[in-house]
């Protein structure tokens, strides 16, 4: 007999399985760290996972959806479905504190508060994830993936990725 507690435990198991999926471009971050994983709904033996895309054209989203289905199947959920929700729109503010630490340790400067984004020619200060110096410069607003910009540290001379605020 299924009790309420069992349902909660089962949902948690489904959530944990989905949350174990990592961003294929930034493998230190799980989709839970990113705030991409929005909801997990159990209905009998069917699981529906709601995710929200980061950038409109982010090619990682297809792979993430596929990997969620695989992870749930491995966890014993045979009927898993991934649904994309557009609203509310994803923002880098949803990146968890833990996720920001992991990013920095990986060598990517985490996004800054999104209130400076609107300035047409605003000055930003981004601290170097390697040496911590804030004497850094923007090399290219568009980096190796749609979510990153390319920066360089003037103190340690290392180039680094900056996760753009969005």
């Amino acid at each position, binding site marked *: 007999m299924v009790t309420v507690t069992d349902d909660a435990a089962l949902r948690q198991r489904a959530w944990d399985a989905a949350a174990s999926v990592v961003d294929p471009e930034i493998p230190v971050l799980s989709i839970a760290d990113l705030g991409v994983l929005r909801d997990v709904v159990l209905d009998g033996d069917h699981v529906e996972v709601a995710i929200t895309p980061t950038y409109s*054209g982010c090619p990682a989203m297809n792979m993430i959806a596929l990997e969620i289905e695989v992870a749930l199947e491995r966890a014993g959920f045979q009927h898993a479905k991934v649904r994309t929700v*557009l609203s509310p729109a994803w923002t880098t503010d949803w990146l968890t504190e833990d996720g920001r630490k992991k990013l920095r340790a990986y060598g990517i400067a985490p996004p800054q508060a999104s209130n400076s*984004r609107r300035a047409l*020619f605003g000055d930003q200060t981004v601290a170097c994830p390697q040496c911590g110096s804030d004497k850094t410069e923007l090399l290219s*607003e568009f980096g190796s993936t*749609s979510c990153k910009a390319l920066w360089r540290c003037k103190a340690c001379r290392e180039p680094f990725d900056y996760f753009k605020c969005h």
Partner: protein
Amino acid sequence: MVVANIQVSETPLVIYALRRADDALILGHRLSEWCGHAPMLEEDMALSNIALDLIGQARELYTFAAKVEGRDNDEDKLAYLRDVRQYRNLLLVEQPNGDFAQTLVRQFFYSAFADLYWRAMMNSRDATLAAIAAKSEKESAYHLRHASEWIIRLGDGTEESHRRAQAAIDNLWAFTGEMFAVDDGERALIHRGIAVDPASLRGRWLATLSEVTREATLALPQNDWMQQGGRSGRHSEHLGHLLSELQSMQRTFPGLIW
């Protein structure tokens, strides 16, 4: 071309969504033509990334259009199986890349408009359109900044870059009027709070253009004769060539998937 064009039930809301989707797809395709050819690596990545954003926006809008239409069309059919006359994009976005200045001026004119447009569309009474706009406006803010910085660098750069930037502005100016025009179907959607009235954005669009071109030591044309046609499916000769490349795989191998 062996595969027949799809039929689209062109209700005002479907046409409205297709116009926005076609703008994004065609401009995204144009930018993707720079991939591997841009003047430097950073710019190659920037133009390709912007293309990716635009094509992503187009996908959401096509999916919405197909849902509103309620037939068996989907994002792929709408992109790959409509012919020139069925496309509703602005003439501006189908103009050839030309030199780097032409590409960046085209991008600047469009991004300055799209940035305002998406921000206004976030208040649409249609929840899906509002959600698509909320994503797109974040992206367009970056696109506008990127293009603006280049306009200043080119205009206030060398004699040659200045000359080319000014030539691009003069060449593309006549295609900007179409951004602010609406037909009766779209006007009805504006009255219902679903669509954005582009005319209400023109003042701010012009202010952005004036600010950036002033700093770039460039001049905006005084000429106010404007070319129209794209919104009703009457295109320049360039779109057919673009579509033949964009659609060649689906036209040759119907239903092909990666």
